[in-house]
Structure formats: structure tokens, C-alpha cells
């Protein structure tokens, strides 16, 4: 078999270089995976063993760290918040961007090209520090909202029961407004890319099905809902994954807009936990594992779409 091969100089050289290349690739792969393993291993150690036990996966595994991180460390709340933001933002982006992209691709109206150009330009122009005006905007609108609610309170108190009025106002101030503001900001972040991506996809899609639907008396919105969206599933999958990773990993806007602990997503929670309990490494590592696992699962399950999205995104840039 292998020994029957003519082992001339050329194949020997090829084999050694192949070996070198493989070693190189494996080495780099190990550096990619090792930090994650180290994090996971550290999350299973205890406060007393973490500084002395240098094994990657400890012999005695303390799974209760995850329970402690989830409850006492507050990562349960952060996790649910992250899940909430990611779901809502991705849903919003898909709705808004597919509507706009469908119009840009299939309909004719004055200002179409100009608007699309503006969306594209927004994607190209770097705006470092755009979080400063966004923070100012969110703050100003909150002040205006609070003032108008305070002005309306005396009137509302006459019409509605006290507890309901105060409960609603507190709910709007502490829960509804910051969450809505954050979600809208994040929708804006992913919008341009998603519109561009979907528009190019719609442009390449055959028009016959939509024509048939139109002849059957389907409205524009109906065609978008029942013909265009189902056909665009591959592109929408790319958008969903790309934006979900983006929102899940977002830190800076969450840092500026969401200041109370029961509103924070995971990334913000990690930094807060790290600042408050600097030496509780096992719990911190458990929290980080909780943060990473969903991302890894989604990534490994959907990596086909992610890779497609990267190439598309690269072409845009």
C-alpha cells in the first residue's frame, strides 16, 4: 500500500511539508480552543483550589458554581435579559429591514435611490464615539417623558386608581423606557447591513412568483409576507445569526443606557461582577461559560450561514 509508493525526493519533501503544515494548523487550533477550556475548567474549581490547582480540567468538579453564579451572581437575570434583547432586536431588524429591502428592490418610488445610497453611506462612514450623542438622546427623551408623565399625573389620579397610576409610571420609568431605548438603538446598529444584504438577495430572486401572486389579487403586503419572505429564508437566516451574535456580544450601549442590575444583559453583568467581586474567579468563569455556551451552540449549529454572512459582509465593506 503506502510502501509501494515510489518514495522519490519529491514525495518525501511533500510529506515533510505536509507534516509541518499540519502541525502549524493544529497548533493554532489549540490556541483557539485552549482559553475556552481553561475558562470552563476554572469554573469548576473552588475559591481555594483555583490558585493552586493548575490542571485544565480539575479532578473534583464543582458544578454548584454554576448554580451559585446563576442565582447569587445574578447571571440568571442577565441571561434572561440578554435573551430578551436579542430576540426582540433580531425580530425587529428582520421585519424592518425586509420591508425596506423589498421596497428598494421591487418597487419604484421617488427618492428610492437616494435613500438606499444614504443607508449605504451610513454603513461605510465610521462614527467612533457615536455612543455619546446616543446617550444624550436617550437621556433627553427620558427627561421629557418623566416631565410629561409628572404633568399628567394629577389628571390621571382623578380618573384611575392611585396604585395603578403610580405602578404604570414606575414601570415605564424603570422597565419599559430603558428597554425600548436600548432595543431601538440596537435595531439601528444592524439595520444598514441587513437592508443591503436582503436587497441584493431580492434583486437576484426571480419575479415570476410575485407576478403570479399579484395576478391572483394579492396585495403588496401580502406578497411580501407570503411570497418574498419565505423565498428569502437563506438570507434571513444569515441576518438573524449575524445580528443575534452582534446583540448578544454588545457592551458599550448596554453600559450607557442600562444602569440598573435587573436590566443588564450578560456582557454588562460580567463587567459589573468582575468589578464587585474581583477575586471570585470560579463564579466569574462560570458566568462567562454561561455567556459563551449559547453563542457556541448557535455558531456550531449554524456555521454554514455565518460563513456566508462573513463573505457577504466582507464584500460590502
Amino acid at each position, binding site marked *: 500500500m503506502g510502501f509501494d509508493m515510489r518514495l522519490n525526493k519529491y514525495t518525501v519533501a511533500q510529506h515533510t511539508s505536509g507534516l509541518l503544515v499540519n502541525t*502549524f494548523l493544529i497548533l493554532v487550533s489549540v490556541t483557539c480552543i485552549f482559553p475556552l477550556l481553561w475558562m470552563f475548567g476554572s469554573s469548576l474549581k473552588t475559591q481555594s483550589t483555583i490558585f493552586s490547582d493548575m490542571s485544565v480540567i480539575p479532578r473534583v468538579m464543582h458544578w454548584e458554581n454554576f448554580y451559585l453564579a446563576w442565582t447569587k451572581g445574578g447571571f440568571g437575570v442577565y441571561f434572561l435579559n440578554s435573551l430578551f434583547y436579542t430576540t426582540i432586536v433580531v425580530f425587529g431588524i428582520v421585519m424592518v429591514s425586509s420591508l425596506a429591502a423589498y421596497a*428598494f428592490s421591487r418597487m419604484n418610488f421617488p427618492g428610492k435611490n*437616494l435613500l438606499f445610497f444614504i443607508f449605504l453611506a451610513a454603513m461605510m462612514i*465610521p462614527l467612533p464615539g457615536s455612543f455619546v*450623542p446616543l446617550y444624550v438622546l436617550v437621556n433627553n427623551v427620558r427627561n421629557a417623558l418623566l416631565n410629561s408623565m409628572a404633568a399628567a399625573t394629577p389628571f390621571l389620579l382623578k380618573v384611575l386608581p392611585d396604585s395603578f397610576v403610580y405602578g404604570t409610571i414606575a414601570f415605564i420609568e424603570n422597565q419599559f423606557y430603558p428597554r425600548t431605548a436600548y432595543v431601538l438603538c440596537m435595531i439601528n446598529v444592524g439595520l444598514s447591513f441587513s437592508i443591503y444584504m436582503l436587497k441584493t438577495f431580492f434583486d437576484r430572486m426571480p419575479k415570476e412568483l410575485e407576478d403570479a401572486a399579484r395576478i391572483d389579487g394579492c396585495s403588496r403586503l401580502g406578497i411580501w409576507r407570503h411570497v418574498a419572505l419565505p423565498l428569502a429564508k437563506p438570507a434571513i437566516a444569515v441576518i438573524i445569526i449575524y445580528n443575534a451574535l452582534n446583540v448578544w456580544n454588545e457592551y458599550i450601549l448596554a453600559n450607557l443606557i442600562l444602569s440598573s442590575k435587573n436590566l443588564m444583559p450578560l456582557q454588562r453583568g460580567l463587567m459589573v461582577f468582575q468589578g464587585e467581586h474581583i477575586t471570585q474567579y470560579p463564579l466569574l468563569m462560570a458566568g*462567562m461559560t454561561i455567556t459563551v455556551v449559547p*453563542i457556541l451552540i448557535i455558531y456550531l449549529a449554524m456555521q454554514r450561514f455565518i460563513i456566508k454572512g462573513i463573505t457577504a459582509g466582507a464584500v460590502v465593506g
Partner: protein
Amino acid sequence: MIAEKIKQFYNLMHNATPKQKMVTVGCLFVALEAAFLNFHDSAVFWFMAYGLVTLSLLFLVVANVIKRSFPAFLFVVPALAIFSIFYIYPFFKVLQLSHHAWDGISPKMLFVGLANFREIMQDNIWWLSMRNAGYITLVALTFQNALALALALACDRQIKAKNFYRVIFFIPPVLSEVVVGLIWRWIYDGDYGFLNYVLGAFGFQDMARSWLSDPQTALTCVAVIHSWKGFGWGFMILLAGLQTIPKELYEAARVDGANVWHSFKNVTIPLMIPVFVLVMILTILGSMQVFVLILSMTGGGPGYHTEVPVTRILASMQGSSMFGYACAQGLTFGVILMMVSFAQMGISRKLKQA
């Protein structure tokens, strides 16, 4: 008629050389600045700025109603609304705030003209942070892109395990910067970190140090981790580029007697120049703007040794409540980034012609 003019202008800009684009953008910017310095009063400014936006939106609506395409226009209204609130308003707000001194709380802002920008010119920490970002970018451009290219070339030959490596190498980029920063902070830790443990186990005790609090190593450590997190992008794009090169070209080169190096130099590199330029632009824009990684790894310390521009912007805003100054910094930095990417495009155009 107006639409025609805009279209003409758009085509003109689209076909212009990067140098012309740069000059045009510069002129527009100077004109905007001149108008702004004359009409800085905030009521007038908002009337002009948002009045213009409102007028153009109204114009669009009226035009759509006249042309009976209003239902089609409704499709883009949600996107347009979000965009004009969260993109156009901040844009004008940056312009306005960068010419004011404002602490973020008091109702009145003080107009200071160009004083913020003058202050930036004399701000040593700002320019130090710029240099740090430049260093991180340099490391990313050389080390990270060389690694990405080497891996892409290696994987281009390997057919079997290519998808496996593709999946593995893209794990660091999908992780969040906070998580990556915190993991490596723990590995780099001076007393209990894994890196020092490994060095000790192999007998290099004297090399062990607290990597992230040592001014000599902190920036390099951050830059290396930034490259570690980013090389997957370059790898993916370069590999996609390499696979578009027809295999017949390599065959032809080999028939002509070219060895591996020659075919790399004469076939791969010329065909890959657009991809190289793309990867370089993405690397520069990404590395100059890195900051969450630094917040989670060092927080800018020790001293100011790992500060980068965006952490300075954040510090001016959150730390010292100088919103006007923060906006001026953001604007300066944005202009610099735009100049860099225009210059890159110019270079790539030259390379393509050569």
C-alpha cells in the same frame, strides 16, 4: 429635477478617484464648519439642521403622493424613522456638541467655537492613545494578517480538514470582547496566571511577570490578544479569495517550470491584491476602533499605557463629564479614519493599474 441633480452628483462621486473624493469631502466639511460657526445659536442650528431633514422628508412624502407611489413608500418608513432618529440626530448632535462646553446635566451649553479642537491638539494623552492604537493596528496588520495568510494558504491545499479548521479558527471572532478580555486577563495574571505557570514549568521563571500591569508588556499583550481575536476574519476572507483563483493557472505555471515560490509570487499575489486591500482596510478600521477588549483587559492602565482613542472618548464623557470635548474627539477621530480608508483605496487603485 432635483432628483436628477442628486443623481448626477451621486454618479460624479461614484466615479471619482479617491483623491477627488477626499477633496470633495474636505470641501463639504469646511463649508459645513463655516456655516456652523456663523449659525451656532442652538435654535437656529436645529432649525437649519433638522428643518432641512424634515423638509426633505416632507418633499419625499409629497412627491410620493403625487406619483401615486405612497403605499410603496410606506414600506421604507419604519427603517427611515429609526434611521433618522438614531443616526441623523446623533450626527447633528456631534456637530453641535463638539463646539460647546457641556457637562451633560446643566440645561445650558456654552459655545466655545473651535476651542475643543485646539485643546485636542495639545492633549498629550489623546495623541499617546492615538499612538497606542497605531501600534495595535501595526501588530494586527503584520502579525495577524501574516498568520491569516499563512493559515489560508495552508488550508487552500488541504481539502479534507478545511471545513474543520474553518470552524475552529472562527471561534475567537464570535466570542464577545468582554469574555475574551476577561479570560486572557486571568491567563496573564501575575500571581496565579496560567502563562506564568507554564513559563515556570519550562524553567523560564525570570520571564514571568504580571503581564498586564507591567508598562513594558501591557500594550503588546493587548495587541496580541486583539490579533488572536481577529485573525479568523482575515483567514476567512483570504481563503474565500484564494478559492476563486482558477486551479488551471497554477497548472500552467507548473508546466512552465515555476516552483512554489514563483507561482505564489506571480499568480497568487497579483490576483489577490483586491482581497489584500479589503482585508487591510477592515483590519485598520477595526483595530483603530478597538476598545471593549481594552476596557475588559486593562481598563487603559497601567497609567495611560493601553489607552486608545475610543477609551479616551469614553473617559471624557463618563469620567470627566466633558461631553463637548468627547464629541470633538469623536469627530476628529472619525475624520482621521475616513482619511485613512480613502488613502487605502487610492493605494489599491494604483496597485491595480500597475
